[in-house]
């Protein structure tokens, strides 16, 4: 690997992060809303009471959060903060910090969406490859229509249907939540099992919907690949069918899928908002949704920045490891 190549890609990564981070700073402020006032008013409205001194409280906390400073000053403070991964306090949940909130939510999202994305990728890619493989069993052709149909259904709708069927009518799985009421988080198999059971329905709704997409993509690539001369050559050499299938067809067809997977893994940090809402999953998607509703600029900045870094980083890693996956690609400039 050439160090210059990695350095160049890393530079691009930093540039992307800075640009996106800058947009991330200015965009929430375009709404013109006062986040402190919004927080206080929403809380008052929720309680139905008319609390005295909201204007004074607003001024007090604007000062505390640095929102009374000129915009350029806030921007510089923001850049200094993100360089240390310090996103300030959550305006709506003070004195909780943005980092604490993200740390609470991230494992749930990564656990649920990460697993679901990897499973649907694996399953969809394998099924897609088989669907285009001439020697695959005939019955496999029947799999495609339901996969297409499921792919057209939004996550949340399928989630509602699955909840009704598998959690309510046939009470096989929990209706909502990350783990059972009264259970306590512990490093034990019973707790693992509890979390797993609670993750099944949301994961299933994501997997059933996503698998079709992965399968479609893989099938398309496989159709092209199976027509290549090197496949014909491999078959002419008398290689076994599984070898031709896995090492010649799948190996070459899967490369665009890997690119898509890397991007999908980067995007999971933004969560699947509606799935999280429906299943009461305390992930990052609902956190972002709530932050937008509450105009909590700092939380929005923290989450979006994390997503940007994750996406930029996965793209960077992909750039770096691609030559390993596909030896035809070189680090050298053309």
């Amino acid at each position, binding site marked *: 690997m050439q160090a210059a190549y990695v350095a160049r890609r890393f530079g691009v990564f930093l540039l992307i992060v800075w640009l996106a981070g800058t947009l991330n700073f200015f965009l929430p402020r375009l*709404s013109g*809303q006062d986040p402190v*006032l*919004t927080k*206080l*008013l929403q*809380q008052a*409205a*929720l*309680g*139905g*009471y*008319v*609390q*005295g*001194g*909201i*204007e*004074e*409280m607003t001024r*007090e*906390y604007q000062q505390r959060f640095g929102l009374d400073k000129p915009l350029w000053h806030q921007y510089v403070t923001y850049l200094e903060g993100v360089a240390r991964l310090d996103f300030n306090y*959550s305006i*709506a*949940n*003070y*004195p*909780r910090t943005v980092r604490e909130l993200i740390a*609470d*939510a991230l*494992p749930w999202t990564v*656990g649920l969406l*990460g*697993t679901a994305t*990897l499973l649907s990728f694996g399953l969809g890619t394998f099924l897609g490859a088989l669907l285009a493989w001439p020697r695959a069993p005939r019955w496999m052709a029947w799999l495609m229509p339901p996969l297409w149909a499921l792919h057209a259904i939004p996550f949340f709708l399928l989630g509602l249907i699955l*909840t*009704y069927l598998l959690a309510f009518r046939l009470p096989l799985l929990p*209706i*909502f*939540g*990350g783990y059972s*009421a*009264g259970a*306590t*988080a*512990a*490093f034990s198999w019973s707790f693992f099992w509890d979390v797993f059971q609670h993750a099944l329905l949301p994961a299933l709704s994501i997997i059933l919907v996503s698998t079709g997409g992965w399968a479609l993509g893989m099938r398309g690539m496989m159709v092209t690949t199976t027509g290549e001369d090197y496949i014909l050559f491999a078959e002419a050499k008398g290689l076994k069918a599984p070898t031709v299938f896995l090492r010649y067809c799948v190996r070459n067809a899967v490369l665009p899928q890997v690119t898509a997977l890397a991007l999908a893994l980067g995007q999971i940090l933004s969560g699947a908002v509606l799935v999280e*809402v*429906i*299943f*009461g999953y*305390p*992930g990052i998607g*609902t*956190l972002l949704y*709530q932050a*937008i*509703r509450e105009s909590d600029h700092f939380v929005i900045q923290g989450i979006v920045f994390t997503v940007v870094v994750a996406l930029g980083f996965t793209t960077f890693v992909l750039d770096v490891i691609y030559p*390993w*996956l596909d030896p035809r690609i070189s680090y050298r400039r053309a």
Partner: protein
Amino acid sequence: MSHDPVPAHPGRREVIKAGVAAGVSALMPWQSARADLREVARNRTMILVWSGSREGRWVDWDLWNPYSIGSNHQNGPNLIYEPLAYYSAFGDKTYMWLAESYQFSADFKRLTIKTQSGISWSDGQPFSAEDVAYTLNTLRDLGPKVRWGVDAQQAVEKATATDPNTVVVDFKISAPRFFFFMAYKYDIGVYIVPKHIFEGQDWTSFKHFDPAKKWPVTTGPWQVADASPQQKIFDRRSSWWAADRKLAPLPAVERNIWLPFAGEQQAAQALITNQLDAGTGMQPASFPTVFRQNPKVITYTGGKSPYGYMDWWPISLYVNNERALFDDKDVRWALSYYIDRQQLIDVGYLGASTASKLPMPPYPPLMPYFEAVKDLLAKYDTNEFAPKKADALLAAKGFKKGGGTWTDVEGKPLKVDIIGFGAAGPAMGPVLVEMLKRRGVESSMTLPPDFDNRFQKGQFDGAIYGHGGSINEPYATMRLYQSASIAVPGAHQANFSRWKNAEYDKLVDEAYRAAPDDTKKLTDIWRRAMEIWLPELPDIQLVQNYHRIPWNTTYWKHWPTEQDPYVNGAHWHLTFAMVLWNLQPA
């Protein structure tokens, strides 16, 4: 011995292995490991669902200092911190609690509170008058930095513990309602905090949560046993001072679990399958389905409409009195006459509501004040549906109706753009818009995400919103329309409708100075105020707000009902502790 060549860079397998290891290490969805909770049987556990406006998680799971602005007493602190007194508007009854008695001076500038003796905080330290004085003085000092600070700062000169069971509160101004302000009712009340824990802490950022130290420390019967984004668990302590004094029984509920709200459908399914004992507010349309599938589910009104109890928050169509056209009382009355409240209730709430005549609920202690203006309400019927009267009022003002739309003398259409939020906006907004359109008033309805900002700043023509005002005497509601006060210097006015009337303002100040229990004097002031308010109609009365809370009687009975209305039953209100000590195993 073979010598494998050392690879110049990691191979594909190594890269994949590293990726898998990184992924697995990320799958650790817990914040803290707590496996030391004792087992409690389901039939001794009460499980409810709630999370304010935040679906799916407790964002504030480690915030147990109710004064920090990110904390919300509705999310659990209401259960653990005890007040000086509770007040039930349904029973019109004050329950003296940490306070044994109180006495105002004749000019209401001094309040002497006798606190109960022999109470201990949960860490064993004695509770005393010092804790009360410390709470009040700190609120005064912190002012706008904490909840209730401004209210305390406006009134309190100083609070002094003259002996372990006596607090003397000196006021800057006459403050006849200060004890009532401190008592728990609905969402208003002062939480008394332990001085030995809070002293030296920054109240704005102190969380008061440390399971190892058994924090939060309170005087109540509930200990926070576990808290995470997923749930808050409160375990009953083995003893409680109030039970020892026979003020209340030791709750039969041994464990109370609060789950974050995940949606109405999920809550309904969990109620039907007995996974929940109490839901959060539900839409009227959901109740018949729930009752059919689980007959053990009840509401305040049993299985009958309106499936709940009347909240303290009657809902109005606020019109911005500072904007042209709506600054004319005849236009406001015309709009009111165009509204068919019964149809609004039938369509918006499937019949499960009632019309609101005045901006306060007809609770028992308020009934004398309704009686006092009965004749005025007959003359100025705020619920009257009379399109012809409305037409006549507009015509008299020079409005003309052409092409089905009213236009003013300059040819501008009479137009009301309405904003709304929460449940009331979507329920009533579209119906209201259609009613007004049919009578020639151009109208539209939106649910803007920045509703609160716009409403507070007066950036609206019309807005659907409620009133958190009076529950036992009329001052608090009267104050909602006051534009300036002399009696309370620096007071912050709500005045959402932006209506101004100097005479009315004086009457509100007069009501402020009156003793809250001087019904005769207050009735007189109230009537004079309504003689101004009703002809002016600053906002247009619509419907009562109902808390439609489903309760499951599979495991627990003796929820508050219309047959036994001991308190309003909302678990997010400050009086929820009263419900818990009343519940009995089914």
